[in-house]
């Protein structure tokens, strides 16, 4: 589908266009990660409308924009964003493959302390898998951990 030239268009307006014009895409990928040894594994589920934007291209800002905003918000005197224009005025990124979109989403929504050092411990702190690879029942959901077998 041909999309409008969104350069300089408010991100909100781009998302409105996408909601109206793009078919949601249900990804089978899930990201399993552990950000605390005292908590069970967490699972990141990609949003179908967001995935449609990522696969289409020309809508989403580059992921570094979110990192800049996160830096601002981490300041002790933060009250409100003053660099929101980065979301709207930065050149939108081109179309991604599904796998590239998942990598982008990890860098956007998984804590940096996890994805920057995911393979530096005795076993991985993060795993990308397919939905079917997750346990099929949630009976013991709070005991889910990344398997030690992945350490090899």
């Amino acid at each position: 589908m041909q999309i409008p030239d969104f350069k300089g268009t408010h991100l909100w307006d781009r998302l409105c266009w996408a909601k109206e014009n793009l078919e949601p895409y249900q990804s089978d990928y899930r990201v399993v990660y552990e950000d605390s040894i005292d908590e069970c594994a967490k699972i990141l589920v990609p949003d179908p409308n967001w995935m449609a934007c990522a696969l289409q291209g020309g809508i989403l800002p580059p992921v570094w924009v979110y990192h800049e905003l996160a830096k601002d918000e981490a300041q002790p005197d933060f009250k409100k964003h003053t660099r929101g224009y980065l979301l709207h005025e930065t050149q939108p990124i081109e179309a991604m493959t599904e796998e590239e979109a998942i990598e982008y989403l990890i860098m956007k929504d998984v804590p940096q302390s996890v994805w920057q050092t995911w393979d530096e411990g005795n076993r991985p702190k993060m795993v990308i898998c397919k939905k079917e690879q997750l346990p099929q029942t949630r009976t013991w959901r709070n005991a889910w951990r990344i398997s030690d077998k992945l350490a090899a």
Partner: protein
Amino acid sequence: MAGKIIADTLEHSTAGSVTTDYVVNGSAKAWIDIPLGAASINDSFNVSSLDDDGTGDFGVNVTNSFGNAFHVPTASNSNASSTVLVNCVVDSKTTSAIEASTIYVSSTANRTFIDRDAHITSHGDLA
């Protein structure tokens, strides 16, 4: 963008007028419908992903961040076929994420997490 209308006021033929500030400021800026189990998303707007953090424990990440952390999420859930009264509550929020949980309280247990469907909407200013 094609089809753009710039207007400060909307006027009805008999019912009066309203400034478009009301529309811009009063519209929900993000919403999501999460089915039972928090492992998928039924529908949404301005959401990039969902965190399934455990039984009845989840988080919503937004695409267009809010301008500050004082946006106002509203959380609800369906209570059909439940023997206890379950509530969906917001636990914390930043400009880019909303953490929430579905819980119940009984005479013998405080704040017990339980998997339920959930619906989150948030109003506020965008970044």
